């Protein structure tokens, strides 16, 4: 026992170093974002002497991060709302209702999990262009919904499977139609799953690069992550402004992580234990 404890303590040292190495890059970036350009060039490692919010303000307003931020906020919130609505509708039907073809339809939804976006992006761009949806918000929203719907359905179906059929039967005896059962019973009962799937879908959409790059070619329609990539070329000689832009893009995710860490971890592992 004593030996194990000693061993544990020794292991804690490299693990602490690794933890530091995990956090340091973000601290470094935050520190740089607070520095003036001159200060950065003179010594990039020293702790910033003053909190220079000027860089953040500059990145937010004149560089256009505010616009990209608003774009992301709009597209992500509509996409996630649609994902949760369509995912819970399908999940309820596929787990609780018996109808002809339900197995096949479930397989269709799940098979799409095996198709990564890279594999379909060329023909998808063509389909979207034919429909006139390239460079439009509805187009990007639709692309996100299509991309993350299979995952959402998978998790909602397995969650709803755990709800006893008696509850649905009782609701029907009370005079509810199938739609009533969905609205009055399944949606409220699904809240825990909707919350954790919703957080993951939000992260997926918010962090996406490739889909947004493909769907939104013009500069004013950029999402926040594409905005960050464009900063690099524009501000390669003004690192503090660049770092500020990165920080602006990272802060919402940081906040989500600080408050909802448990739910994120649970969502990630749900796929591994149920799959």
């Amino acid at each position, binding site marked *: *026992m004593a030996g*194990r404890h000693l061993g*544990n*303590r020794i*292991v*804690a040292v490299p*693990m602490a170093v690794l*933890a530091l190495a*995990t956090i340091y*890059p973000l601290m*470094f970036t935050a520190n740089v974002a607070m520095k003036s350009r001159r200060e950065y060039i003179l010594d990039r*490692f020293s702790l910033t002497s003053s909190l220079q919010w000027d860089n953040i303000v500059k990145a937010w307003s004149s560089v256009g991060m505010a616009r990209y931020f608003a774009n992301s906020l709009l597209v992500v919130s509509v996409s996630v709302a649609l994902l949760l609505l*369509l995912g819970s*509708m*399908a999940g309820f*039907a596929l787990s609780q*209702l018996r*109808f002809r073809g*339900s197995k096949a*339809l479930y397989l269709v*939804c799940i098979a*799409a999990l*095996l*198709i*990564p976006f*890279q*594999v*379909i*992006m*060329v023909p998808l*761009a*063509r*389909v979207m262009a034919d429909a006139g949806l390239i460079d439009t918000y509805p187009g990007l929203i*639709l692309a996100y919904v*299509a*991309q993350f*719907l299979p995952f959402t*359905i998978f998790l909602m179906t397995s969650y709803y499977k755990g709800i006893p059929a008696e509850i649905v039967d009782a609701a029907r005896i009370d005079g509810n139609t*199938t739609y009533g059962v969905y609205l009055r019973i399944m949606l409220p009962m699904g809240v825990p799953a909707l919350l954790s799937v919703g957080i993951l879908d939000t992260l997926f959409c*918010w*962090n996406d*690069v*490739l889909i947004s*790059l*493909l769907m939104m070619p013009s500069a004013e329609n950029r999402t926040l*992550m*594409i905005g*960050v*990539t464009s*900063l690099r070329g524009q501000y390669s000689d003004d*690192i503090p402004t660049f770092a500020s832009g*990165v920080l602006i*893009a990272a802060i919402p*995710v940081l906040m*989500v*992580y600080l408050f909802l*860490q448990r739910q994120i*971890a649970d969502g*990630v592992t749900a796929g*591994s234990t149920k799959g």
Partner: protein
Amino acid sequence: MGAGARRASLGARFERHAPYVLVAPAVLIIVALRLWPLLLGVNFSFTGDGERNGSAVGFDNYLELLQDPLFQGSLRNVGLLVLLLPLAVAIPGMLATFIYLRVPGHRVFRSVYFFPAVLSPVIVGAIFNLMLAFDGPLNALLGTVGVGPVDWLGDPDVAMFTVVGVQIWATFGMALVVFLAGFASLDATLLDAARVDGASLARTIWHVIIPSLSRTIQFVFVTTMIGMLTSMFGLLYVMTSGGPEGSTYLPEYYIWIQQGQMNRPALASAASTVLFVIMLVVGLLQISVLRRTGGRT
């Protein structure tokens, strides 16, 4: 028939078809924007680009792919990913083991390690562009012990390892959390028995933990591989743009370049089909491995 009765029968029909009404929007979107494009793309990969647009060209695109040094390089890099895969699984596995054994500070470690996994590859890439700059923090640190400086992103022999290293940094927390979920289902009495028998930590890991977690380990192997094949675009796009000298191409980046920059959608579709086959092989391997172990336990 009165209006009321007609409305009732319409309502009844609406109710009878309720399951289909509920599933239809999702299925339509998935079929139209995921499954149909897959077929279109495969079909598309046998047609020509540019002047030969739309005409059937047989396997020409695939032959061109095989001869393209950039695509060859991207496949070689896939091979490199496969070689580095055990490392990308073992690191989070070891860390999860120590966290499970309640190393001092395990709660803090758990939340710190998982944190980069929620960041966008773009943000991770941008941060590491700063960290790995020729005169950046990492080279400064190495300089204090008399090593370097290393041109992390500018040396064709180094750049791909750098990007994979960053990818592992950014995603090991994800695998760690999956491992910890696996540990939650581990039979603690086995560990106690090993402890009573005086087994060393190494023997406990080898004889108790690895066999008990085989399903989790396989899951992590496959998801990590899929992650490496399909979620490194953001890093490549921000950190290297495929360079230097095309040394950091992966199939997904090649597809993007051929589609977006070179205006060769049919060639890109052929590359997509190759990537899909690689993914299928990975997926089928998983299923067969799961079957085998499933039969044993």
